[in-house]
């Protein structure tokens, strides 16, 4: 039977009935003392990275504006776009967990800015992301599944230019600004939080309206090159890295080792992605801040499947798997656990398709 990814459909009901929803997930054993040390928060790494990020954005946009409308400005816009349309994705993510900084207001401030850049309502998406962690890649429960089965390859490819996500994001923003919450959002946002959803959407509409008004007044798209459009022309990096998180792997299992992927990446991508390439580790222990994930990885890798050696190598398994899922949607990449790993539930590990 075809999978139904709707939060309100038959698979959602089945997940609840079969105990897949809000279930107990596998965790590698790490002594409390070590885990406490890994979870410790700090301001310093994220302050450094945030100064670097905003400093680079101001510089690149400044040069882009200075060279506008010459084509010489293009490389500066492309670099600015990646910081706006991709680095902000990982900042949004880390701050939604509250783990980027030790100081709460710093987390919240960066979270608001990053949510705006990514066109993700900061209230709505905090709840949807909580659900993604409760029910990771459980069909009908996880609202953040990128590569469904069969995979909507056209949608994924369009999203390399942010087209589907930002279209939906802006559509939702207008709906929320009109005072409404989509029924699917209502399935995971508590009643008392909904006025906040609407308030933020109205503030955003005002910012976009001012930007568009400035563009019209000056007869130039330059203001939109700074605000709004980089969500499109800079989205490719976060999609490139984000697709690898779960694509092609098992669904409906309660073990992140089987449905998530850790990929070794170059330092530039890791800065943009804030170490989310350690994705199994992040899902297993979402309390560990991004700057400690390499340490967590070293600590628990004996219990995890071998990481992918590079993005290239990861895509060389993901792309054929996605193509195969177009024809056989039950096909998936079965993760081999190392001999030193603890098994979890035999029914998950033994299934081979």
């Amino acid at each position, binding site marked *: 039977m075809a999978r139904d990814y709707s939060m309100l459909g038959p698979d959602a009901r089945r997940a609840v009935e079969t105990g897949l929803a809000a279930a107990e997930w596998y965790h590698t054993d790490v002594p409390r003392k070590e885990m406490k040390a890994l979870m410790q928060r700090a301001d310093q790494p994220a302050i450094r990275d945030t100064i670097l990020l905003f400093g680079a954005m101001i510089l690149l946009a400044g040069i882009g504006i200075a060279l506008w409308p010459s084509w010489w400005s293009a490389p500066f816009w492309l670099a600015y776009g990646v910081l706006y349309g991709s680095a902000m994705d990982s900042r949004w993510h880390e701050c939604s*967990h509250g783990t980027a900084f030790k100081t709460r207001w710093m987390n919240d401030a960066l979270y608001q800015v990053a949510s705006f850049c990514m066109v993700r309502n900061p209230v709505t998406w905090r709840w949807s992301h909580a659900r993604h*962690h*409760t029910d990771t890649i459980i069909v009908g429960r996880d609202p953040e599944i990128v590569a469904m089965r069969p995979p909507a390859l056209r949608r994924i490819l369009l999203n390399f230019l942010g087209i589907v996500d930002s279209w939906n994001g802006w559509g939702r923003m207008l709906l929320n600004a009109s005072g409404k919450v989509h029924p699917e959002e209502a399935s995971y946002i508590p009643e008392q939080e909904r006025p906040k959803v609407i308030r933020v959407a109205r503030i955003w509409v005002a910012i976009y309206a001012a930007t568009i008004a400035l563009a019209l007044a000056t007869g130039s798209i330059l203001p939109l090159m700074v605000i709004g459009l980089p969500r499109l022309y800079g989205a490719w990096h976060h999609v490139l890295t984000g697709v690898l998180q779960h694509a092609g792997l098992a669904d409906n299992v309660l073990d992140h080792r089987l449905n998530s992927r850790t990929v070794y990446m170059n330092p530039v991508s890791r800065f943009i992605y804030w170490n989310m390439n350690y994705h199994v580790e992040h899902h297993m222990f979402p309390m560990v801040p991004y700057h400690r994930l390499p340490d967590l990885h070293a600590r628990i890798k004996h219990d995890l499947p071998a990481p992918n050696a590079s993005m290239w190598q990861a895509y060389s398994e993901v792309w054929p798997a996605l193509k195969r899922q177009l024809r056989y949607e039950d096909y998936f990449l079965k993760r081999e656990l190392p001999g030193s790993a603890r098994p979890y539930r035999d029914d998950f590990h033994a299934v081979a398709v």
Partner: protein
Amino acid sequence: MADWIDACATDDIEEEDLIRFDHGDRTFAIYRSPSDEYFCTDGLCTHEQVHLEDGLVQDYEIECPKHNATFDYRTGEALRAPACENLRTYPVKVQGDRVLVEL
């Protein structure tokens, strides 16, 4: 009538940390603050009923290990989404080297 229950030794909990305490069919979290005071709350997060025992204590806050909701463990107040409901708290006293909770 509520009873004072012997929950643990003062040394069972590290400074700025918590332990789980089960009593009857109920489960609690007992905290030791950075200034060496003891507190007790319900053990399960009010968001999705995950136990707080693997969470992180920082100052007077406990962060849930599942989705990082934060509570003030002195008052039980929910400080950060996705928790909206406060945690229930219980009176605690220290007698000698024992921590007692009024349940």
